[in-house]
């Protein structure tokens, strides 16, 4: 089996950097991380909005979330790829386009995580908070959110893992991420195919496996009494349409 050279390996890890654009594994990780942070803020607002009693807030949020969750990642990427240059009149570069697209995509799923977390709180908590006279915002800030967010952390980590696993889709709009750089190297020479695939596959495996172990440990530590968000986190990105089907716990634990 022929192994890729060191230069090629570096290409896999960081793409053309520092001579060209950043790419490879680093690109996957950075975009996913950024998308998750920004997506969390948006997802939090969306999730809370979806729980609101005001029709004008609840409906649009729900529509947005359901629409995005029913759309493949690739299509969301295409949307922003076509939309952004036209709306803003200028190209803002592939990196930011993909980050924004990923943010929008993951925000819908995180909105569901938030919503499930809030729904999982015993109703007595907000009731007790309201009964001492706290306003809506105060109840959220001091009582419900602190508890709900803590329960959501494992689901949040799992969403990170799922998004990372979907990040190769970025190559469809030209981002030179790990799968793409791997493909470039593998097609250089037939003999390189086995080794390159092995390396790329192993990289994904190691990262996802490690992250999921972290997620398991986090869940055990944070919720020893097993009161985590009642969703099988690994199935996070699969859910479409409605709490009924999604918010059910299938058997024990996660992975």
């Amino acid at each position, binding site marked *: 089996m022929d192994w890729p050279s060191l230069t090629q390996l570096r290409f896999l890890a960081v793409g053309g950097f520092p001579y060209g654009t950043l790419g490879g594994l680093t690109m996957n990780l950075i975009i996913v991380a950024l998308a998750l942070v920004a997506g969390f803020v948006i997802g939090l607002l969306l999730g809370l909005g979806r729980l609101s009693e005001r029709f004008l807030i609840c409906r649009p949020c729900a529509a947005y979330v359901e629409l995005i969750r029913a759309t493949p990642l690739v299509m969301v990427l295409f949307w922003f790829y076509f939309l952004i240059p036209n709306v803003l009149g200028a190209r803002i570069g592939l990196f930011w386009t993909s980050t924004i697209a990923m943010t929008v995509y993951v925000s819908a799923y995180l909105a569901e995580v938030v919503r499930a977390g809030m729904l999982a709180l015993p109703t007595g908590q907000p009731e*007790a908070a*309201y*009964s*001492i*006279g*706290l306003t809506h915002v*105060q109840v959220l800030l*001091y009582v419900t959110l602190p*508890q709900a967010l803590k329960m959501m952390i494992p689901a949040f980590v799992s969403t990170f893992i799922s998004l990372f696993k979907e990040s190769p889709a970025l190559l469809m709009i030209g981002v030179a991420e790990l799968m793409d750089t791997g493909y470039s190297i593998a097609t250089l020479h037939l003999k390189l195919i086995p080794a390159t695939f092995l390396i790329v596959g192993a990289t994904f495996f190691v990262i996802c496996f490690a992250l999921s172990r972290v997620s398991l440990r986090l869940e055990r530590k944070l919720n020893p009494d097993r009161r985590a968000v009642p969703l099988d986190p690994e199935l996070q990105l699969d859910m479409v349409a409605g709490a009924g089907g999604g918010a059910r716990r299938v058997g024990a634990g996660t992975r």
Partner: protein
Amino acid sequence: MIKFVDVHKWFGGFHVLKEVTLQIERGEVMVICGPSGSGKSTLIRTINKIEPIQQGELFVDGQCLSDRKLNVFRLRADVGMVFQQFNLFPHMTVLQNVTLGPLKVRRLKPAAAQERALAALEKVGLGTFAERYPSQLSGGQQQRVAIARALAMEPKILLFDEPTSALDPELIKEVLDVIVKLATEGRTMVVVTHEMGFARKMAHRVTFMDHGRVIEVATPDEFFRQPRHERARQFLSQILD
């Protein structure tokens, strides 16, 4: 102080409160009892508008609860509630649980809030438990903290929704003692409970409910010795062996 006038409430299709007309005076200790499903918990929860009513009028401390201009948050600050499931905030210490209201709702300075909280905790006998977390307390202690939390707001009315029903028998007494102490201080209290001993001793009046209706309202003497209605008699014979 609290006045129900022909109040009705539905949960979807289920008619949970029917033609409820009841008056509770200032300084009165009113015990509400009845079989499960009679609507007594729902009734007490309408007083601080945790459950809204669909028909009829409800006046609390002179304010009409259906009034559009009502500031429900200020109302709730003046009405303290103790729940069956305690509902302490698990992510806060006992002290933080009790100071939350005074700090954020009464807008007291931290020092003043803490003083008030500690006084309330002393009153329920848990002054030294300030830095503990609810999970480290027994059921009886948690409920007493919940009472302190309500007291720290210096409410005009105290509502108790089956405060001892979720407690192990040996822990009931410590909570009841606190409630008795409060009752002797001339507060307006509405207590939903199965503890008939308490009702006999401390209540000014007893309200009996069944299937969403107020069946009988009488003094403990009248109610326990000679209930006028058949269902009241059935209920008492079941409860008081």
